[in-house]
């Protein structure tokens, strides 16, 4: 949780510096997952990131969606896991599943 607050600090600094930013948050987990619910990743318009929503397995895909959210202003709900028909071709090595909410900071 203190990590999450550090993320907000950095996001605040990016905003204050005139950058467009988005926040991704782990909102549900099933099975073993590397980061608990509430973990956050901040992303700025250049793709710079702070914090984490996994052990590094899905950050790449989340940054891509965060940049899209920064562009169109719409929130997104992303599912990551080891199901056959996953919408995202990124798995979690640990076999868990996570759902991540991505939104632009207005």
């Amino acid at each position, binding site marked *: 949780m203190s990590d999450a607050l550090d993320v907000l600090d950095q996001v605040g600094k990016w905003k204050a510096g005139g950058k467009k930013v988005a926040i991704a948050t782990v909102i549900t987990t099933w099975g073993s997952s590397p980061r608990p619910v509430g973990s956050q990743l901040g992303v700025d318009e250049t793709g710079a990131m702070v914090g984490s929503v996994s052990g590094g397995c899905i950050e790449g895909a989340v940054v891509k969606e965060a940049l899209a959210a920064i562009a169109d202003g719409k929130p997104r709900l992303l599912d990551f896991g080891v199901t056959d028909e996953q919408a995202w071709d990124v798995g979690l090595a640990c076999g868990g599943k996570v759902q991540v909410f991505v*939104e632009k900071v207005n």
Partner: protein
Amino acid sequence: MKAETLAALQDARKQRRALALATRLGDGAETLIYPDRALGVQADDETLLSAARRALEIGRSETVDLGGQRIFFNVYVPPPRLIIVGAVHIAQSLAPMASLLDFDVTVVDPRRAFATDSRFPGVKVMQEWADEAFEKMGLDRSTAVVTLTHDPKLDDPALEYALKSDVFYIGALGSRKTHAKRKERLAEAGITDEQFARVHGPVGLNIGAKSPAEIAISILGQIVEVRARRLEALTAPKVAAA
């Protein structure tokens, strides 16, 4: 997330106040829930508020279905804080170890020779009497207090103050004998046996610790245990009364 929401979250952190942010996942609508008030789109929704208060109480973020809407409660609680009274040798091990565990650490000691920044690199050091320092910092239920000075004139006022607060952990260094005498002194100051029972003394888990670093481990082990058990008790499913 609205810019005002981000600012509110940052403010709460600075003031060491807990709050929950409810986000309606369908459209991103936000409601901020403080222990005593709520602001935002669903601030009048009693069902949402009671679920938010429960999440706040147990300090755990979660997604729930409320009347067909998926709501994510993100609970922001102040980082746990450890206040060490006595800038002594054990404190020099305890402070950096507690920092590794993400505790916000402050060392308090009115004695100039002990309370120096050079003895505690990277740690907040207050050269003050404990009760005065506590008054400034404001003790809360995410705070742990450990007294290490062995000197009643320094330890006792700290314990007395801490016992009147809702800190989650109080520990006092000293043997059983020292602890018994401490109990007598604090009884004279009006601390009841029941109140005194909150003080962990002799401090720490019994792991045969001898060196300052080992004692620091035993203290931190106990603090981690007390914190985890409290959370378990809060999150255990409640058995409905018949």
